[in-house]
């Protein structure tokens, strides 16, 4: 069975500082990986996804993520955070078939301080 682990429950970063949110997956084959963001009271917005190919993927809002098979990781990064990035971030995975369910991690809450 698939599982996704986000080791950090809560991260606080100063505005303008760099950010890295960790995500580890467990899956027998190469999973399809996603990062979603949930702003307070809002739904889930897709930031980026990895299906195959280049292991560094670019997303919206200046985010990027790197797939590392050797570490079973798919960490999300941003070089300089903005106050509007404060939100809950979810890593998710699914198998190769397009209709498979997503398995989510527990989420990382990001707080931005001035």
């Amino acid at each position, binding site marked *: 069975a698939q599982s996704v682990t986000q080791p950090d429950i809560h991260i606080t970063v100063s505005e303008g500082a760099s950010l890295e949110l960790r995500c580890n997956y467990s899956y027998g084959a190469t999973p399809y990986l996603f990062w979603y963001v949930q702003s307070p009271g*809002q*739904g889930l917005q*897709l930031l980026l996804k990895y*299906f195959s190919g280049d292991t560094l993927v670019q997303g919206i809002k200046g985010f990027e993520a790197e797939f590392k098979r050797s570490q079973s990781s798919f960490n999300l990064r941003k070089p300089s955070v903005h106050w509007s990035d404060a939100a809950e971030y*979810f890593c998710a995975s699914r198998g*190769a078939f*397009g209709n498979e369910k997503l398995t989510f991690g*527990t989420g990382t809450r990001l707080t931005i301080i001035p």
Partner: protein
Amino acid sequence: EPEVTQTPSHQVTQMGQEVILRCVPISNHLYFYWYRQILGQKVEFLVSFYNNEISEKSEIFDDQFSVERPDGSNFTLKIRSTKLEDSAMYFCASTPAWVPGTDTQYFGPGTRLTVL
């Protein structure tokens, strides 16, 4: 840009009552899903639906739950007799097809269900 819509945004009900949560997936999408997120917890899969039948369901999706696509646009989740522990945010999602690169799940804004 097309988006998944859900109504209502917030539903309050008494324990034991039936509720129907409504979703309008993105048109021309083929697969539909319901997920839920209990406050402070992770998003959990409930059920997937394709070609007018359930493709997969989780252990959460017991006999109290049902899904339906009553017409060409709506996708509903019914809870027959709500319990306190059904209080959660319910998300609908849809995805286009089995074509790699296009089969991303797009989520609606959610319906917050509060059972009193």
